[in-house]
């Protein structure tokens, strides 16, 4: 008999807690610096409100980091206790076995030998302790404080430079969008820990909720400062009465929409807020661009409505790239895509989406002949987007294909063509099924030299977990089949995601994988089947596997071929879908045909 304690789940939460606490502490100085810049030329009661809000934010940030560090220490303690308890249980079991063996000797030797045997076993092999090691209760406690944002009673006037305030809001949003990924990771790791480590009693669990409240306060701050900046701009400079700023600073968004756009919501909470809002397609079209930009990224909203908002934002980005570049906070994001690159990428994504729209006209029934842009925005300074062939809201069979290193949204046309081939091949295998294939470029893929690092997979895994859970939550039910495909580093990212998802996925298929870490091996993943393939002409995947394990070498992973077969061609390299040569998802590749069969039937 063992104890209900999964070491990998605890380690995952520890790693996550350490990294997020460190990130929170490291981001304090940049936040302070940009707030100080905003305070230049900012005077009056509103500058004091801003300073007070900044101080609360800063203190809460450090309290949150400390709460995470405390949690990490407690988890390390219970890990040691779990080790001790497992050892004790093993000792007891071994002793009982030895005792049983001695009983046999006693039975064979008769009564005269019994006192001698009893004496020798009590001296040389005493019974181990029968008292179980009790785990210390774990407490994960943090509560965010609310911040005051009106100063009407002062009766005086305030003045500020609106450009500085807007820059503060933009930079804060960029920083917070990265912290949102951290929240998703903490929340998911905490949920997995609670479900797999029930041996450990939990005294307090307010930290994930408090973390979310902290981010919601930050988002309110950014929106508040934007509104104050707009009021100063509209006034043409100079000072404004505090009472006027009280009016301008109050959110104009209705409470339901405010709730929906709260960045700390889980996909399930987003789905509930969306249902309560009762918006039509026309309502989504009528939203201001800044709201559409937030809306486009909401996992948990139905794909049809995300498509409307995402297309509106992409169209605006093609028309006025400078404006969208600023709106997305990219000028203030370290390592972000340049404006020139932004221009190229949005045009290429628009062209890829047009191709998807045209290809979708040929999608066989009963699948819906549509293409959807499900999300268009920024993650870690990169443009991200997902394009679906088919209807993600209704398809009975959903596939999400995750590309690897160096992928960006300007390669969407290639990913969409690969998806088109998969959908056509899968339809032949199960024509009664309605399919949707998502080309998901929803994370900042690593550059070639970043591949050995797990950082991009960790951040991308949080995004993907949220996207996958959002599919279930927005539909209100699971698709009949959900398959995740991971190419190269995309498989590493997909494994990170499947260690966190709330809903189970039917199959994970890796092709040309750069490997899994110790905490993302199949037994830790929320998936029924893991399949893996790699071609013998693929000499790149192995180079990326430093410190990671080839999934084909893991137990519980079924492998299949990617070389020449009686029905298909061998891959000629590492690519997913090259213009020349054979890639894993090229139309005639052995790997593509096998993957299509897994999508359709669940097995190769």
């Amino acid at each position, binding site marked *: 008999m063992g104890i209900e304690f999964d070491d990998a789940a605890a380690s995952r939460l520890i790693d996550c807690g350490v990294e997020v606490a460190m990130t929170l502490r490291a981001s304090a100085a940049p936040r302070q610096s940009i707030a100080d810049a905003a305070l230049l030329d900012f005077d009056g009661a509103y500058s004091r409100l801003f300073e007070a809000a900044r101080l609360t934010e800063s203190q809460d940030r450090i309290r949150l980091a400390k709460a995470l560090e405390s949690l990490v220490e407690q988890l390390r303690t219970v890990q040691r206790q779990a080790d001790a308890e497992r050892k004790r249980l093993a000792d007891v079991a071994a002793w009982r076995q030895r005792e049983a063996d001695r009983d046999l000797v006693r039975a064979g030797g008769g009564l005269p030998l019994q006192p001698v045997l009893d004496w020798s076993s009590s001296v040389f092999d005493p019974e181990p302790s029968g008292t179980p090691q009790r785990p210390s209760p774990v407490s994960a406690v943090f509560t965010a404080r609310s911040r005051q944002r009106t100063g009407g009673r002062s009766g005086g006037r305030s003045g500020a430079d609106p450009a500085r305030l807007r820059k503060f809001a933009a930079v804060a949003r960029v920083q917070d969008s990265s912290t949102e990924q951290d929240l998703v990771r903490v929340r998911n790791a905490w949920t997995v820990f609670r479900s797999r480590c029930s041996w450990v009693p939990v005294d307090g669990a307010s930290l994930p909720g408090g973390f979310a409240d902290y981010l919601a306060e930050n988002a309110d701050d950014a929106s508040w400062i934007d509104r104050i900046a707009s009021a100063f701009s509209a006034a043409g400079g100079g000072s404004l009465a505090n009472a006027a700023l009280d009016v301008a600073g109050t959110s104009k968004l209705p409470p339901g929409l405010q709730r929906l756009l709260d960045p700390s919501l889980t996909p399930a909470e987003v789905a509930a807020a969306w249902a309560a809002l009762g918006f039509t397609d026309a309502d989504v079209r009528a939203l201001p661009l800044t709201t559409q930009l937030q809306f486009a990224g909401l996992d948990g909203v139905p794909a049809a409505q995300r498509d409307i908002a995402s297309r509106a934002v992409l169209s605006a980005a093609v028309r006025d790239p400078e404006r969208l570049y600023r709106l997305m906070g990219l000028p203030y994001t370290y390592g972000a895509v340049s404006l020139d690159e932004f221009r190229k990428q949005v045009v290429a994504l628009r062209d890829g989406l047009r191709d998807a729209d045209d*290809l979708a006209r040929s999608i066989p029934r009963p699948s819906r*002949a549509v293409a959807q842009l499900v999300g268009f925005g920024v993650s870690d300074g990169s443009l991200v987007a997902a394009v679906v062939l088919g209807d993600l809201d209704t398809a009975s069979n959903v596939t999400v294909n995750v590309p690897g290193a160096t992928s960006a949204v300007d390669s969407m046309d290639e990913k969409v063509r690969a998806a088109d081939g998969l959908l056509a091949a899968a339809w032949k295998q199960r*024509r009664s099924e309605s399919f949707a294939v998502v080309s998901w470029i929803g994370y900042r893929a690593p550059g070639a030299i970043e591949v050995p690092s797990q950082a991009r997979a960790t951040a991308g895994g949080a995004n993907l977990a949220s996207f996958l859970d959002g599919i279930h939550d927005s539909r209100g039910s699971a698709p009949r089949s959900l398959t995740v495909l991971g190419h190269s580093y995309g498989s590493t990212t997909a494994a990170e995601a499947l260690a966190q998802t709330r809903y189970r996925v039917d199959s994970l298929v890796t092709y040309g994988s750069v490997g899994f870490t110790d905490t993302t091996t199949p037994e830790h993943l929320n998936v029924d089947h893991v399949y893996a393939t790699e071609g013998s002409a693929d000499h790149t995947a192995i180079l990326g596997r430093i410190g990671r394990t080839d999934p084909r070498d893991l137990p519980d992973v079924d492998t299949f071929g990617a070389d020449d077969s009686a029905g298909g061609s061998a891959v000629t390299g590492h690519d997913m879908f090259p213009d020349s040569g054979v890639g894993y998802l090229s139309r005639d590749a052995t790997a593509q045909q096998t993957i299509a069969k897994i999508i359709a039937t669940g097995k190769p």
Partner: protein
Amino acid sequence: MMKTMRPMLRAITTAALTLGLLSGCTAGGNQMPTDAAGLTQDEVAEMSLHQEFDAYRDHYEHMQQLLRNAQLQVHDGEWEWGGGDDVPGIGGDGVAPLPGSDTNNSYDMSTTRLWSPPRRTDQQQALKPMIDYFTEQGWTIERRTITGDQEIWATTGNGWQIQYTAQENGDNPLTVYSEPFWANDAHKLRRAVAGRSRADFPDRSLPGVYPDFPEWDDPIINPPKI
């Protein structure tokens, strides 16, 4: 409105155009890669979008004839449609190489129909009538087996390939593929066709029955969604 065959006139016009372009080729010299219609990229460069559209329509009609003739070898009843087939596919990754082609300067075509024999037959037996037909035509034949499915693949030698599969699950899909065609701007050609397409492909139809292909003079009824 459905029809079974297209007027010959357009085919003759296109054939004449093709011949005219071919006759303009230099004899000897460097061999330029030719597409599924036997044209070089330079020859296609002489064509207007309108001419490319009309040539595409002729390819489409030819693809339907190839499909119909193959269908009738195994089943003269209704076949299920494997999606719409009137919009040009994106080139660069076709069933045959075309050196220098990419997604912007080439396209290809394909059409799929599927039927299920009422009684499960041996997969090899199911393929036999099609093998006999391909052999009669003098086409190159290749047999393939993939994940338990048996298929026969014919290459006509003049720009087309035909795949017929007897699947383990009892379904028998038939697909006609074109090899790549050059285009001056594949996106523009695709838009020209998709913009006029009524996308009213049926769920199932008899061999040789398919919706009218749009005319160049038809209005654009599907503008880009973005």
